[in-house]
């Protein structure tokens, strides 16, 4: 063994806040249900299995405050249970249909296992998936960090008050949820600019992550590139994403998820199935849409959807084994090359959206588990470390001034600022400016309960208007009308509530409805938006 490298996996779990208690079934709530069944449960189960076997995962998981709020929302939990039960019922029917088709039967059984395990884990933790994450963190198996309150792209918030509010609310939310202060902060979309350093430190965060070119563009030279941590002038720790290990997993074209044996995402029973058979499982409008049961494999990059062949779970698992071995061999080579050049051991930081594992790349959780397990089984000179562990044990990191960057397309802010979505910013800024102005006006006043509730709800609505998700959905043209409506509603709700408080005519019934629907951040105090806040 010529060297021993440290690997750092950061899985960023985030969904926009989608909660429609007024509807028994709401299409966009399926994002949450699908992610729970396909991603969060399989990852938590894998982490628990490894831990139970004495293999410490040592990964970091970022749980966005909006996702955390949904994971703890009892109304969504009830709908999730119905969703899982409904899918299990559909799977029973599909098993009957597949009785004489062994290849299909095997895949349907796989889905039965997936949904049954989701039901079991939800039952085990009384519907609260924060509990196992908290337990794993408490046992030192993983580190859980947070991100901005509603996943705002912080460099696009020009008002300091708005940035501070996003950070302060996230820190308080984490404390409430995990019973400790957060050490790490995932910058939404890995979007960094230098003025964030002071806000992050003032909010109590010790470290964050940047895209690799933030380090490449640093004003001072960074001789170890992305292979060591750094610190800013005010002592904020920085980890830079390693592009190579990210590309192997992220890229559907060149990376592992594009393997012909893996499950095809875009061919779904919701489009293929006999309409009358699947009709009860579609939405109220009866339109065909994905049901999460996908029976085909990628087959080939150029294969037409109609030409996709049946999925074979055993063949896919064999590829998982091969890809995990390949991933680790490449990290070993990276390590050896770096050691030969620098004479020191590298830190390799791999950051991924958690939802890639399971939802988009069906075999992703198995890959993750296999990679972690293989290091132990094959006694490889690699070790997983969490960010806090690494910072606590390494030498004082070198100081650098990283460059402005993001992990979005082209490396800056193009996905969130372009001709498809730029029209949203007047609404975002209108709500934000009015929120700051009103917080300043009322911060030292004794307010009656109704006015305080209205101001606090206006702060929630303002934060929700700032979410990066609306701009991104508009950009990719997916659920664009929903995204536009949400953005406009949150901005309008904030402006309406603030005006009502100023004019002393708060509509209590309308306020109560908003409090029920957008019920995240229960302790939120509107003064967090004041120009001179608690900092």
């Amino acid at each position: 063994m010529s060297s021993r490298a440290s690997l750092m996996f950061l899985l960023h779990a985030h969904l926009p806040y989608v909660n429609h208690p007024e509807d028994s079934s709401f299409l966009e709530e399926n994002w949450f249900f699908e992610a729970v069944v396909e991603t969060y449960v399989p990852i938590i189960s894998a982490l628990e299995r490894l831990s139970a076997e004495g293999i410490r995962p040592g990964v970091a998981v970022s749980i966005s405050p909006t996702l955390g709020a949904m994971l703890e929302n009892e109304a969504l939990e009830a709908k999730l249970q119905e969703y899982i039960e409904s899918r299990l019922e559909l799977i029973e029917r599909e098993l009957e249909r597949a009785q004489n088709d062994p290849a299909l039967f095997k895949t349907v059984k796989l889905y039965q296992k997936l949904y049954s395990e989701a039901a079991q884990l939800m039952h085990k933790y009384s519907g609260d998936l924060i509990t196992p994450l908290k337990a794993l963190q408490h046992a030192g198996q993983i580190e859980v960090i947070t991100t901005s309150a509603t996943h705002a792209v912080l460099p696009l918030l020009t008002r300091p008050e708005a940035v501070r509010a996003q950070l302060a609310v996230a820190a308080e939310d984490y404390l409430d949820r995990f019973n400790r202060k957060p050490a790490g902060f995932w910058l939404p979309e890995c979007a960094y600019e230098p003025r964030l350093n002071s806000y992050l430190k003032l909010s109590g965060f010790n470290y964050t992550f940047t895209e690799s070119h933030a380090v490449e563009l640093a004003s001072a030279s960074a001789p170890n590139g992305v292979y060591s941590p750094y610190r800013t002038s005010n002592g904020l720790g920085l980890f830079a994403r390693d592009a190579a290990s990210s590309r192997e997993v992220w890229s559907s074209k060149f990376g592992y998820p594009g393997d012909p044996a893996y499950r095809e995402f875009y061919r779904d029973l919701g489009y293929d199935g006999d309409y009358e058979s699947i009709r009860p499982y579609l939405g109220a409008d009866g339109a065909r849409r994905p049901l999460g049961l996908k029976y085909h494999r990628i087959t080939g990059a150029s294969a037409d959807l109609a030409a996709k062949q049946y999925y074979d779970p055993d063949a896919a698992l064999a590829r998982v084994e091969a890809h995990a071995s390949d991933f680790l061999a490449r990290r070993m080579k990276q390590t050896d090359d770096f050691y030969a050049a620098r004479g020191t051991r590298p830190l390799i930081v791999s950051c991924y959206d958690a939802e890639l594992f399971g939802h988009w790349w069906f075999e992703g959780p198995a890959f993750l588990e296999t990679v972690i397990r293989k290091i132990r089984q094959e006694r490889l000179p690699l070790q997983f470390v969490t960010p806090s562990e690494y910072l606590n044990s390494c030498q004082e990191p070198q100081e650098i001034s990283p460059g402005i960057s993001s992990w979005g397309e082209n490396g800056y802010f193009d996905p969130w600022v372009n001709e498809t979505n730029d029209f949203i910013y007047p609404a975002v800024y209108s709500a934000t400016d009015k929120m700051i102005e009103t917080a300043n006006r009322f911060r030292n006043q004794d307010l009656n309960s109704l006015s305080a509730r209205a101001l606090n709800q206006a702060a929630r609505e303002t934060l929700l208007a700032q979410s990066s998700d609306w701009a991104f959905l508009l950009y990719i043209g997916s659920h664009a009308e929903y995204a536009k409506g949400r953005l406009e509603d949150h901005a309008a709700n904030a402006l309406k509530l603030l005006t009502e408080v100023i004019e002393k005519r708060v509509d209590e019934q309308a306020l109560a409805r908003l409090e029920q629907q957008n019920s995240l951040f229960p302790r939120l105090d509107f003064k967090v938006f004041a120009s001179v806040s608690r900092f």
Partner: protein
Amino acid sequence: MAGLSKPLPAEDRLVLLPKNPGRFFIFWQLSGGRAEAFRSGAFAPEAELRLTYSDDKTHASSHRVSWQQAGAYLTVPAQGRVYEASLHAQRGGAWEKLLESNQAAAPSAAGMAEERAYASLEFHKRSQP
């Protein structure tokens, strides 16, 4: 810019946002009085956006715009510098400064962009069948 479905309060605002090393996005909103001054012809319909270097306050570039377009993409004069913008209107042949923006830093360009894998975009951008 495409429109919002819901009207916003008539307020004065000029916001400069970074897009990439070569482009800024800037948008403006005008209060009722200023919008009326354009509508009535008191101001000429063509306004001017001026970019200034924040560190030494020197002029960086000027861009003519229609006051009604409410937003524009501006070429960044030099990467890696911090800018602020102002919106000017012409009354009787003389320019008046109407609005000033926030400061915004233009990123520096990095190499190898094509080799990076950018988040989940590849998956999201594939359309549903």
